[in-house]
């Protein structure tokens, strides 16, 4: 069975500090990987997607970057956090375009 693990579960960070969030998928080869951001009570905003190792497409510009160093790993990062980065970050995988997405449990980020 496929599993998706996100880390950390929650983070409290200061404005201007760096951030790195991770996501690992097990049990699925060459998945499409996605990062989404959700404000409290808000919609899901797609940030990045990747269809293969080393390739990442940006969907919106939010002073964030993403990388896919391994087939089963997706990293979201920034060198300088903003207050507006607070929210819920969700990693998801899908087998192909226009297919079901499976979301991880998410990381809650509070920027103070």
């Amino acid at each position, binding site marked *: 069975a496929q599993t998706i693990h996100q880390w950390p579960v929650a983070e409290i960070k200061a404005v201007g500090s760096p951030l790195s969030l991770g996501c690992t998928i097990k049990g699925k080869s060459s998945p499409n990987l996605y990062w989404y951001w959700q404000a409290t009570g808000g919609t899901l905003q797609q940030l990045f997607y990747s269809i293969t190792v080393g390739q990442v497409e940006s969907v919106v510009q939010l002073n964030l970057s993403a990388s896919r160093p391994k087939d089963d790993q997706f990293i979201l990062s920034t060198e300088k956090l903003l207050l507006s980065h607070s929210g819920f970050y969700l990693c998801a995988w899908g087998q192909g*375009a226009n297919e079901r997405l499976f979301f991880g449990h998410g990381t809650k980020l509070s920027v103070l």
Partner: protein
Amino acid sequence: QQQVRQSPQSLTVWEGETAILNCSYEDSTFDYFPWYWQFPRESPALLIAIRPVSNKKEDGRFTIFFNKREKKLSLHITDSQPGDSATYFCAASPYNQGKLIFGQGTKLSIKP
């Protein structure tokens, strides 16, 4: 601009009634329309999806009605149960792209 709009923002119905959630879109290249539901403190999960070759998709008490000409769709939940209380997101994806655009969500509450 690619947008997905949902209405109402929130909806309350009595147990046993039919809840109707609406969704509209602008981009005619969208060809996959999933609905996701999200319970408090949980990640979204796929509920039901439709492609434009069909104008109706049923799964138990959940039915999507799709009107391609008007670029509208709706989710009908018959015999609503308290356990259906959640936020429902309509989403849309252009053909064969890694983008899935979510609407703002409808918060559904079922009163027993």
